[in-house]
């Protein structure tokens, strides 16, 4: 018989039943007829026929049991029964489902973030074929345009090659800046990746050539906000950094470029850099910013690809040596070679800074779910004890033990499926919240959080696993019930002694241990975060506005631009509400850095890295505005800056490293570029160390040069404005002042404290979430302990009554219960400490100023756990002590 037939049987049990019925009826009537023919009365014959046949229902059932899908029927019955028994105890069911929803939901949320950031492939044509070009190590993956052009023109060894560079563009002309995330792409980019336009056309090879026209492709979001819709965007123009671009198409909304975490609103052809940044930018051999993806020909092995890249490299690097490199550097440059790495999931800065944190969080929520599982297992155990009678009756009337286990497991599975369904809803909300947490004023994080097969599979697997974890022990125990004993004992659950409680107790110990580990972890992360926010950064960030001004569109050049910048400084200082004003090229913790080799008399560098100093260009009054202390000498003066006098201010770390104990004032330093030495600059002042790139860095040797001296031009300038009132009261006046000075200046306003907070996004996220989950773990463990102790007290009512009747004092009873709880807690703490010592080193890279086994943090965690758990045990202990022995014994 074919399986289709069997499948058919499974879904037509009624027809099968009816046929069997008729067949048996026929048999019985034939038999009766035969007996009647032998002389029996018809009714007696019918009876006799039935008697001889035996158990007709059993025969029928047995025949039916042969349906391949007969078990489906009993499964449905199990589910119906489980639903009924869960409905009968709604309190238990809702507590279990809600805690599972939370546990599974938290796991799903973190996993869907991990999925979106790390696991998921780019939504492009055959992402698995793509490889990323790099030089030696996977992180060394940015290239200059001259390098890219040579790779592109030698593309024959590959099926395709594309270049991509994330960027951001200002969409307004003058006034407040409106920044849109964008990307530079090579002409072949969209065709090679198979990305379609939803309106107009995508950029193509003919759009990307030297001297190209300004064309742009925009996202649906930009098309909507700027032009009112995708179709109306085509043929319009969009201003970007003061230049006008023609919109030729709107990109498929599922595509988000090659960098996971960003969502470009504008794509521009690589050649248009020339229009935006000047004629020689495409030939710059020291601007490293392009990512290159290759698609090897079908059937090319990674080794073959590597060999091809290695043979290409020498020619390409020899043709692109930066002219300003020192001879030694040029030799080093020529030695570079290409390597390739899988790139199916694209590139991502967000990924490199957050993947370790996500794995930590994944472990944390996994442990929380385990603790929640232990609680539910405990509840189920208590429930199984209460249901002993029911189970005994079912066993007594013939249920198989396997059947009972299956039925109880169905109940557990049902709980976790409900939990998972709610959990997915919770996760959708929570993962969005988390992504919001990753974003800041200056960086909008975008991740595709749609729930895909992988996330669903994960949730399903977690749900099944949890059901097995918390359901197996109670089900196994229930199957051990001895019907006679259970029925005789009148459902009092006094039948089996201590062995039964062992599972419950071990669960409590495990809960205490795991929650201690989580509390210790979160203690470390919270402690690190506290250190980060309370350390002295060398500046006072509260009350400082950061106003970034762009002077490019004013069309002014040096020295007129510097004059305007100086005038603005003066005028801002006279603004009501403004206490101090400074200006600088770089703002601390603003994701920008500048370093150079320096030469100082009497300082011999042991290696090239040893002679590096970080740099900034600042105005007079910068240190005052930032609240950075002057340690020795004096600040630069406005007239010095205007006259371009070669002076410098250095920080204490610079003095310590380069100058030692000698008096730094009056000494000179020179910038070393390639083989040439810069002009000597006189050190006029020393300031306290201030954080430069991040709060957790060691003090960096820093040199402050006067504004508009040194390599980077100052088309953009940051003004630091210390104010003594609410920002909202000052910002409009500042905007008006700037616009009045020159309407072509565009400006962005932010708060310095916001920038500092943004730099702490990761430690804050870790501290907040681990603190939250640590507290939750503690709460769950305490509930577990409380439940177990209360249950034990109830179970031992009679025994306690007897003890008291025989003269035990209330304190003794209390001590007995507390002693039991204390043993569990102590055991849990011992195991927990071991787990913590073994596991906290995995978070050591996330810690600041604390070691992974910081004794103080561990001590606090242990005390906290002991106190909270002890308090939870007090309630049942007190209740035991209040027991009236007469009441307890009368029940016997």
């Amino acid at each position, binding site marked *: *018989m074919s399986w289709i037939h069997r499948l058919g049987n499974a879904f037509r049990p009624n027809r099968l039943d009816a046929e069997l019925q008729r*067949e048996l009826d*026929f048999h019985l009537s034939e038999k009766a007829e035969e007996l009647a023919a032998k002389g029996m009365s018809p009714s007696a014959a019918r009876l006799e026929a039935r008697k001889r046949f035996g158990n007709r229902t059993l*025969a*029928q059932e047995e025949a039916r049991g042969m349906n391949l899908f007969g078990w489906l029927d009993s499964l449905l019955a199990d589910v119906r029964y489980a639903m009924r028994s869960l409905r009968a105890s709604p309190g238990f069911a809702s507590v279990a489902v809600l805690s599972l929803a939370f546990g599974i939901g938290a796991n799903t949320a973190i996993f869907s973030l991990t999925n979106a950031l790390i696991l998921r492939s780019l939504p492009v044509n055959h992402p698995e074929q793509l490889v990323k070009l790099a030089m030696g190590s996977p992180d060394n993956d940015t290239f200059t345009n001259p390098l890219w052009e040579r790779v592109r023109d030698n593309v024959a060894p590959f099926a395709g090659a594309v270049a991509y560079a994330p960027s951001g563009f200002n969409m307004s002309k003058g006034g407040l800046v409106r920044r849109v995330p964008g990307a530079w792409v090579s002409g072949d980019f969209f065709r090679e990746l198979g990305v379609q336009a939803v309106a107009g056309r995508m950029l193509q090879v003919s759009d990307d050539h030297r001297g190209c026209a300004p064309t742009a492709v925009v996202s649906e979001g930009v098309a909507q906000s700027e032009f009112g819709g995708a179709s109306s965007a085509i043929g319009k123009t969009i201003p970007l950094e003061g230049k006008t671009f023609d919109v030729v198409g709107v990109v498929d909304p599922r595509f988000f470029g090659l960098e996971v975490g960003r969502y470009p609103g504008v794509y521009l052809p690589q050649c248009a850099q020339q229009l935006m940044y000047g004629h020689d930018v495409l030939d710059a051999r020291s601007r490293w910013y392009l990512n290159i993806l290759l698609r090897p020909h079908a059937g090319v092995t990674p080794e073959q690809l590597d060999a091809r890249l290695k043979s290409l490299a020498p020619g390409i690097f020899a043709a692109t040596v930066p002219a300003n490199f020192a001879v030694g550097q040029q030799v080093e440059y020529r030695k570079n070679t290409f390597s390739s790495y899988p790139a199916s999931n694209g590139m991502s800065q967000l990924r490199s800074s957050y993947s370790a944190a996500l794995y930590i969080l994944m472990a944390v929520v996994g442990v929380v779910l385990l603790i929640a599982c232990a609680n539910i297992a405990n509840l189920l155990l208590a429930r199984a004890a209460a249901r002993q009678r029911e189970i005994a009756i079912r066993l007594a009337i013939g249920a198989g033990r396997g059947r009972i286990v299956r039925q109880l497991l169905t109940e557990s599975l049902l709980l976790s499926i409900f939990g998972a369904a709610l959990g997915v809803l919770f996760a959708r909300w929570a993962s969005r919240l988390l992504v919001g947490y990753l974003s800041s004023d200056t960086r909008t994080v975008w991740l595709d959080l749609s729930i895909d097969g992988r996330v669903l599979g994960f949730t399903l697997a977690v749900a099944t696993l949890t059901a097995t974890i918390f359901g197996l022990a109670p089900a196994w125990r229930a199957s051990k019930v001895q019907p006679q004993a259970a029925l005789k004992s009148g459902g009092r659950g006094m039948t089996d002694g201590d062995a039964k409680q062992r599972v419950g107790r071990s669960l409590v110990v495990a809960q205490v241990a795991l929650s201690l580990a989580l509390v210790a972890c979160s203690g470390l992360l919270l402690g690190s975060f506290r250190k980060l926010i309370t350390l002295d950064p060398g500046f006072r960030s509260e009350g400082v506005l950061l106003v970034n001004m762009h002077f490019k569109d004013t069309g002014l050049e040096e020295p007129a631009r510097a004059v305007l910048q100086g005038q603005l400084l003066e005028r801002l200082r006279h603004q009501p509400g403004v206490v101090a004003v400074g200006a600088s090229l770089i703002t601390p913790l603003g994701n920008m850095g500048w370093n150079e080799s320096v030469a100082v008399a009497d300082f011999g560098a042991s290696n090239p890295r040893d002679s590096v100093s970080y740099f900034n260009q600042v105005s007079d009054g910068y240190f005052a505005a930032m609240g950075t202390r002057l340690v020795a000498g004096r600040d630069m003066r406005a007239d010095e800056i205007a006259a371009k006098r070669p002076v410098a201010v250095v920080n204490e770390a610079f003095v310590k490293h380069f100058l030692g104990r000698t008096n730094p004032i009056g000494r000179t330093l020179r910038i070393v570029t390639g083989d040439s030495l810069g002009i000597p600059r006189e050190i006029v002042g020393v300031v306290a160390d201030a954080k430069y790139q991040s709060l957790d860095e060691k003090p960096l040797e820093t040199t402050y040069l006067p504004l508009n001296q040194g390599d980077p031009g100052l088309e953009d300038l940051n003004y630091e404005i210390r104010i003594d009132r609410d920002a909202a009261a000052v910002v409009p006046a500042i905007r008006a002042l700037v616009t009045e000075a020159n309407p072509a200046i565009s400006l962005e306003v932010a708060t310095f404290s916001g920038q500092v907070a943004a730099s702490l996004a990761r430690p804050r996220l870790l501290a907040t979430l681990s603190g939250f989950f640590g507290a939750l773990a503690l709460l769950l463990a305490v509930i577990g302990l409380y439940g177990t102790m209360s249950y034990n007290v109830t179970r031992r009512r009679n025994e306690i009554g007897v003890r008291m009747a025989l003269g035990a004092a209330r304190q003794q009873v209390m001590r007995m219960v507390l002693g039991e709880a204390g043993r569990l807690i102590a055991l849990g703490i011992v195991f927990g400490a071991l787990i913590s010592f073994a596991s906290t080193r995995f978070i050591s890279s996330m810690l600041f100023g604390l070691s992974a086994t910081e004794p103080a943090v561990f001590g606090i965690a242990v005390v906290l756990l002991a106190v909270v758990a002890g308090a939870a045990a007090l309630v049942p202990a007190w209740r035991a002590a209040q027991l009236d022995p007469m009441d307890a014994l009368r029940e016997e």
Partner: protein
Amino acid sequence: MARSKTDILQGTLALLVLRTLSSRGSLHGYAITQHIQRGSNELLRVEEGSLYPALHRMSQDGLIKGKWGITDKNREARFYAITAAGKKALAEEEDAWRRLAQGVSLILNFA
């Protein structure tokens, strides 16, 4: 008399049914019991409660095939016939049975 009747050995019911159907063509369940009882001179008794489950199992395994038909008394009944697979199974079972019987009788006679 009932005492001398032998309940059919576990597993031999299928053999008997197959043999009956192969020699007598298509039969309904009742006729199968009749044939086995009469053919064995009332020595064997078919447990009716296990016949129908056995028939269903065999038709699921494809050894026999059931079809509704009309008896000579003009009543509806399900008639079973042996299939090609059933014939093959019958040959194997017969062989196995003969060897078993031979072995058992050897022991009974000479041991």
